[in-house]
């Protein structure tokens, strides 16, 4: 089999890895900021339908669709942040799961707009691989910049300990909203690109399955690094292809993997690897304290 045939047959998988990495990054943003939100699947649905409806009903083209999706996603995030900012612990988790269910139900119900269970089809395939690579690179770049900025430090502080962050003067509620808006925008972009790449969308693909996928990818790869979300996504999407001979055991393996990773490797793969590298480096180049000269 030629290299070309190999690449062309696996391009769609690569495209999906790129798109789903964005969904995972939306989830990463939440976890990074200490927000127990599982909403990315809902943001993805909103972005997908916005993008699809824009490109099919208005003549404004793909970029307009993407911008509209970003706006809708950010708005949805802000709307969620308002009631949830005051809650802690498992409440935001349950509420955001409920949010995902609500948008799926609404997408099923609003037939004239969303096509109901049939969904939307014949969406022009404008998001080709180079476009997806560019989008992912842009988001990764944006997140790297954010991580190094005040916003990133605020997120870290809030994630470590909310009360301490408050006492340090960090406006927790404000950053909570920023976090949700960012997560919403990224999730929506992912959804828009999904619509522009896979020709058809239905409400079912954005439900609990996608929610679990996003959380699993970030947990698997590592919650504190951008690379973690991407690697986690790649593993989860490529594993079923490699594990094909094992058929139904696929889901079983994913479930078992989740349990094992979260218990024994809670930092995720990338973060643990980084930690190990750092330890090894410090062993090789120990910091030697200066010799005290007797006075």
């Amino acid at each position, binding site marked *: 089999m030629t290299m070309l045939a190999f690449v062309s047959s696996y391009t769609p998988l690569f495209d999906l890895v790129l798109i789903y990495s964005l969904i995972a990054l939306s989830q990463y943003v939440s*976890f990074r900021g200490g927000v*127990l939100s599982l909403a990315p699947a809902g943001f993805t649905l909103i972005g997908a339908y916005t993008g699809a409806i824009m490109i099919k009903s208005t003549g404004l083209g793909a970029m307009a669709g993407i911008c509209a999706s970003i706006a809708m996603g950010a708005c949805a995030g802000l709307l969620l942040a308002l*009631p*949830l900012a*005051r*809650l*802690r*612990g*498992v*409440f935001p*988790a*349950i*509420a955001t*799961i*409920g*949010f995902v*269910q*609500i948008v799926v*139900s*609404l997408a*099923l*119900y609003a037939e004239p707009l969303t096509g109901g269970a049939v969904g939307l089809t014949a969406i022009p395939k404008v998001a080709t691989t180079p476009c997806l690579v560019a989008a992912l690179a842009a988001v990764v770049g944006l997140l790297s910049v954010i991580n190094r900025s005040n916003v990133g430090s605020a997120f870290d502080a809030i994630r470590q300990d*909310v*009360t301490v962050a*408050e006492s340090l003067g960090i406006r*927790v509620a404000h950053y909570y909203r920023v976090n949700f808006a960012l997560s919403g925008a990224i999730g929506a972009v992912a959804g828009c690109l999904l619509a522009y790449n896979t020709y058809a969308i239905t409400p079912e693909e954005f439900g*609990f399955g996608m929610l*679990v996928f996003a*959380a*699993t990818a970030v*947990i698997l790869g590592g919650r504190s690094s951008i690379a973690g979300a991407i690697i986690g996504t790649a593993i989860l999407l490529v594993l079923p292809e490699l594990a094909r001979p094992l058929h*139904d*055991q696929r*889901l*079983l393996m*994913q*479930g*078992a*993997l*989740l*349990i094992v990773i*979260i*218990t*024994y490797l*809670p930092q995720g793969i990338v973060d643990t690897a980084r930690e190990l590298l750092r330890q090894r480096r410090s062993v090789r180049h120990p910091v030697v304290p200066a010799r005290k000269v007797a006075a």
Partner: protein
Amino acid sequence: MFTQQIINGIVTGAVYALLALGLTLVFGMHRILNFAHGAVFMWGGLIGYYLVTAANFPFWAAFVCAMVGAGLISICLDLLVFRPLRRRKGDELSTIVASIGANLVLITIAQQVTNAQSLRFPFDTFPLEFYRAYGLQISSLQVVIIVTVVLMVGGLLVYLFKTPLGAQVRAVSIDEPASTLLGVNPARVYLQTFFLSGMLAGAAGAIIGLTFNSISYTMGESLMLQAFVVIILGGLGSIVGTVAAGVLIGMIQTLVTAYISSELSDAILFGILFIVLLVRPNGIFAGFHVEHRAA
């Protein structure tokens, strides 16, 4: 029709309460949100089914064994999944994720065991009679559901508040380290609570599988989200609150289906969840744990 729908609502509510009881017990006592609870419920139904069909047990015997079996599965969950996490000081997110993984594992095993078929108890498993009066009707099975819930709730309250074992459970839930000073073995308490929770779920699985003519590997999934709404509405950890909330949710769902639209019932349900979280996140009745709200 309205009165008949009220009866339906109470029965539906009793169903939710049965399922939610075990969930709120474990959350109230140990702050563990067990996503695998639905799978334990489903396995209760499956065990009951196989005992009746393959081993020719009479229903009451299969019912008892289903409860015990589900309790044992629940204990395994604690031993294999939650206890290792506790030892490693896992956080709330880790517990949720691990239970999602466990859920996946239990469901896929069931899927393979049942060959993905939808099963029903044989037609003569339980004498199905209809009691009619004043234009209303209720079936023997519906009565059994209501009676079961009442008995379960009564038994649970007696256990928790009138027995020394129950006192230990409550002690651990209030302050685990302090309770060890008093000679309580927390590990054993966890096992008890999980066993109880599993028993409740197993009973629910067998009864519901019988009443609604359907046992399948997906039967836990669709009810789990309603169960989450119920435990939040009722106050996490409150037994009585859960039952009250269950009946309320059952009533609302029934009336929405009957008078508005079955398509919207999910959306309305989660809308209610949001409102409750906004206005009264501690639910109708304060439970054993009150979520601390930061500022």
